[in-house]
């Protein structure tokens, strides 16, 4: 156990709650059951850590083993840091047949080819996700094990999620991914957030979607009926319609937990009755950021409650439709800003 290994061990153990320590160490598989029994999990963490460290020394464990423990922690706690989604493009014919062993070998080989010092660990998680931990070095320095990049890829899908990647290492990672998954290119999906699961669910559409063709109206039941026969709601139907449209745009039930959406507006001024600015050719620039603990839920409520006018603007529904939360809106741009019909406030 060198200093770095001890350091990683300490950092990891500190993050794991006491209740989950035993279970996590068990699945690590580098400390025997009998050794585990000698550990007292009720000890203060720093005492516990000392005891654990001596066990590691006893078993002759090194950095390699300790980083495995760190990976287990990250796999079990995926909603940490910021994840950025990337999308692989133009799959080759073999892309669908890429397997874990093949991917593992190729990915490592491609990365090692361009970088002398790099340490890669690949682990498969239960739900078909491949977790990759990369510690980067360069031609002169050993890999920095304290600042690893985490990559999650779902085999046979075009989606890759990356956390803590510096722009310096981006091209190397992208190239290795493209080659080892048999695609021809990769692009930034403009989707980021702290919840890996949410990003995955949003891109793979693993949430309850509502479609306009759905005429069975299951939503009606949720619209609370008046509590008394003498109370009549004039706008019950309107409220229902708004809810339907809100759910069509942002999903029903529990929706993926996104935190932010950012729009860089570079459109012409569209405010009311200001001729000087409306006649101006240059765009009226601004950045709009929406933030919430659960953005899609907030937006759904915003539309359903009438704080936003229905139908939902394509700018907002693009979050789910296109699986993005960063947009640049120009006059002819992707958000179809120019098509929008305005209404006076």
């Amino acid at each position, binding site marked *: 156990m060198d200093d770095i290994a001890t350091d990683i061990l300490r950092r990891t153990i500190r993050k794991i709650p006491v209740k989950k320590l035993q279970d996590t160490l068990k699945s690590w598989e580098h400390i025997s059951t009998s050794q585990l029994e000698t550990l007292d999990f009720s000890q203060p963490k720093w005492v516990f850590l000392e005891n654990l460290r001596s066990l590691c020394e006893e078993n002759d464990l090194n950095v390699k083993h300790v980083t495995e423990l760190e990976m287990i922690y990250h796999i079990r706690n995926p909603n940490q840091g910021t994840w950025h989604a990337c999308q692989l493009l133009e799959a080759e014919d073999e892309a669908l047949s890429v397997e874990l062993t093949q991917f593992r070998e190729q990915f490592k080989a491609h990365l090692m080819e361009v970088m002398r010092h790099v340490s890669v660990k690949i682990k498969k998680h239960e739900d078909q996700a491949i977790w990759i931990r990369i510690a980067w070095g360069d031609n002169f320095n050993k890999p920095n094990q304290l600042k690893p990049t985490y990559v999650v890829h779902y085999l046979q899908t075009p989606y890759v999620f990356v956390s803590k990647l510096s722009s310096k290492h981006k091209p190397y990672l992208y190239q290795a991914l493209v080659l080892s998954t048999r695609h021809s290119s990769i692009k930034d999906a403009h989707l980021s957030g702290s919840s890996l699961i949410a990003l995955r669910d949003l891109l793979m559409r693993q949430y309850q979607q509502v479609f306009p063709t759905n005429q069975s109206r299951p939503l009606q039941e949720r619209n609370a009926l*008046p*509590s*008394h026969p*003498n*109370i*009549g*709601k*004039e*706008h019950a*139907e*309107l*409220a229902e319609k708004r809810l339907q449209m809100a759910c069509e745009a942002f999903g029903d039930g529990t929706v993926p937990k996104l935190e932010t959406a950012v729009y860089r507006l570079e459109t012409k001024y569209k405010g009311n009755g200001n001729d000087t600015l409306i006649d101006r050719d240059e765009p009226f620039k601004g950045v709009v950021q929406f933030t919430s603990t659960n953005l899609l839920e907030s937006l759904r409520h915003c539309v359903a*409650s*009438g*704080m936003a006018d229905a139908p939902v603007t394509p700018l907002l529904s693009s979050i789910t439709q296109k699986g993005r939360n960063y947009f640049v809106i120009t006059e002819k741009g992707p958000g179809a800003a120019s098509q929008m019909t305005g209404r006076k*406030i």
Partner: protein
Amino acid sequence: MALLTPFNKMPELNTANILLVENEEQFQTKLADVIVNYEKQINVNVRLARKLPLPIENADTRPRIDLVVFIVNLIYERSLQAMESSIKHLDSGFFVGKVCFLVTGARCGSVSHERLLSVRKLAASLHCPMLCAEDQTTEGVRAAALRLLSIVKVSAGLVPTATALYLSALTRCTLPAELDQD
């Protein structure tokens, strides 16, 4: 544009109908519950609306409206804007004691004074009463509901000695003369 009119339907015996218009649709439901459950002597119907005009589809089932209450939550500018656009869809026949304004949040320290002033000016110009209510506590809701009940009884013609016009002449909102110049 369908104007809501006060006299195009026949009144029903021993019945008063009240229309609560509120953009946020929060306070109106609380008020409605108290109103219908409190009154035992007469039959009170409450219609809840978010804005005017009301949907044409409901025109047949809707009873004759005896009192229209515009609820304005002063905390939100939108509440005021929505009320201002709704009021245009009301027939002038209502403004003889069959309209009242109910504002909430008037004493909230974070509210712009201009909003209350706007409602007061509007109420005064339309010769309508303006009530201040408290929507956060059950007592507040109850007090507001009871005030509305006593007004609707008069405007429905269920109080022998009073008429809507008479009541509104007594309770209408007034402004000091110098403010009218603004």
